[in-house]
């Protein structure tokens, strides 16, 4: 997890009038599990396709292992792709599918046989050599697609929402499977998804994207606990985003009260946004809280209760394992380190701020 393997420099890509990626910079390290996370249309798949060589950027450079690969066709790149809808070759058996890349490279029969065996073992589908893709379930097809890619020993595996078409249980199993694979193979994974839970579970590094811009780069913990702007806070998990004023370092005014926090360096009396995760709000007896509120909605979610609490004209989303019936008057407390302060977006285009690394 040290050397830069891929350097993406000032990539711009537009389809007609529509700018999909705007002057994007990003580097990917060796052995990293990097996830491009964002809503549909944020440019994450386009970026992956540029890496794979299926799209050409309008400007900018892709540096792979120190070499510019802008004009290298997909078949000459040292990376392989796992496609969203598997893209298996339906007229070939599973073994032929996996052998495809190796046959083209002119490997010997014995080598190919060994590799097929190894790859099928790796994805837990031994004995499926002679089946056809149509006879496999979605999850199995996806694992074959992964096997077909990794037998070529790419330096980087690109995965384009590979679990998107699978049901929830299978998706969770496959997440662990992918982490195991990545550790066994010791190669770089670039993973595209719109599923924040998937991103948080598997990644070393998450790149949150929106409207062609990178919003935040960080570890899953960074992204979840310290979102840098309202978009990231809103996109990753549930959150309460509140207008606030930074009175001075470590003191913030919001919801009509003054709160202790841990953030510094925003200046004095500056308007900011404050993020509080629903599970970080503690509901207590009215007299013990910093402010008071009334429970207006209550839903049982299994692991916890989801409540809405009306306090000083703000609806706060609260997750708690304790249940407070609708109408209960409660006190609200938040630990200082659970309040995350963000700069107010300067432009009107609040969600699409380009940020410096």
């Amino acid at each position, binding site marked *: 997890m040290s050397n830069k393997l891929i350097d993406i420099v000032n990539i711009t890509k537009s389809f007609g009038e529509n700018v999909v990626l705007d002057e994007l910079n990003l580097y990917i390290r060796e052995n990293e599990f990097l996830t491009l996370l964002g809503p549909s249309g944020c440019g994450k798949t386009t970026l992956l396709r540029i890496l*794979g*060589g*299926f799209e050409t950027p309008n400007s900018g450079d892709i540096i792979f292992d120190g070499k510019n690969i802008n004009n290298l*066709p997909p078949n000459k790149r040292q990376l392989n*792709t796992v496609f969203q809808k598997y*893209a298996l*070759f339906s007229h070939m058996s599973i073994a032929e599918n996996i052998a*495809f890349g190796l046959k*083209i490279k002119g490997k010997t029969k014995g080598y190919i046989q060994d590799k097929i065996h190894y790859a099928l073992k790796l994805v837990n589908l031994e004995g499926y050599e002679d089946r056809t893709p149509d006879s496999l379930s979605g999850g199995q097809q996806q694992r074959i697609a992964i096997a077909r890619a990794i037998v070529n020993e790419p330096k980087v595996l690109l995965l384009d929402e590979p679990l998107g078409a699978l049901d929830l249980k299978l998706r969770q199993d496959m997440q662990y499977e992918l982490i195991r694979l990545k550790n066994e193979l010791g190669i770089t994974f670039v993973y595209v998804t719109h599923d924040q839970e998937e991103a948080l579970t598997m990644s070393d590094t998450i790149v949150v994207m929106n409207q062609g811009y990178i919003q935040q780069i960080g570890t899953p913990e960074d992204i979840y606990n310290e979102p840098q702007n309202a978009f990231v806070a809103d996109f990753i998990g549930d959150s309460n985003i509140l207008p606030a004023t930074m009175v001075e370092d470590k003191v913030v005014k919001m919801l009509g009260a003054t709160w202790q926090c841990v953030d510094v360096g925003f200046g004095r009396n500056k308007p900011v946004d404050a993020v509080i995760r629903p599970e970080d709000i503690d509901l207590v007896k009215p007299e013990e809280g910093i402010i008071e509120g009334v429970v207006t909605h209550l839903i049982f979610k299994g692991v916890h209760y989801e409540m809405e609490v009306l306090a000083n004209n703000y609806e706060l989303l609260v997750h708690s394992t304790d249940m407070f019936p609708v109408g209960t008057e409660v006190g609200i407390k938040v630990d200082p380190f659970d309040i995350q302060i963000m700069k107010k977006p300067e432009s009107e285009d609040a969600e699409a701020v380009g940020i410096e690394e």
Partner: protein
Amino acid sequence: MKNRKLLTGPYLFWAASFIIIPLLMIVYYGMTDKEGHFTFMNLARITTPENLKALGLALLLSFISTLICLILAYPLAMILSEKSVNQTSFIVLIFILPMWMNFLLRTLAWQNLLEKNGIINMILEFFHLPDQTLINTPYAIVLGMVYNFLPFMVLPIYNVLSKIDKDVIFAARDLGANNMQTFSKIIFPLSIPGIISGITMVFVPSLTTFVISDLLGGSKILLIGNVIEQEFKQGSNWNVGSGLSLVLMIFIIASMALIAKYDKDGEGTAF
């Protein structure tokens, strides 16, 4: 459920009166002589030298026409399948448009073009070039077949090609295949169902046609279709005509069996 079954009544009636009964009648005529006695003689009539020649020529010309259609249609279908839907629908329309014109009229138009004193020879004459014998040649018949049946080759191939997932092609490129390898190992094999159904849709009508050979081949070049037509109309010998039709059917059934073998998922026959 009973009411629903009742709804199939008209179709059953249609199928019985216009498909099954006529077919049985052809079988009956084909297997009997004029007095109504059972015989294989009508089927055996295919073995006369003239009829064998007509069948052989029909097979040869249909084969050549089908091959030319395939060579012309495949690249066109590929170009079409790479265009966006808006552009394709216009080009497809251009190709289908002549099909809306009467088949006979189209063939007659070619007759006019190719005739000894026809338009092509007039143009040649204008430039003081020697006359060409165009009409009443096997080439003219092949031209007529290709012109009339080309859309039936383009559409099923286009249909199959446009259904190939772009990601499948990307995947082949991604795994190291160059453009040629992607075509020969992925695109072409995946398009075989379309090719098979295109081939049948051109080969079968070419094999049985008598209008094209009549108008563009004159009375000199007889195909098996012309022989059958003459038996019915000039010879008034329904028995021999039916017998020869049955023989032709065997060839067609054989080609259908070929489709059933390759076109397992029926994708190519969607057209």
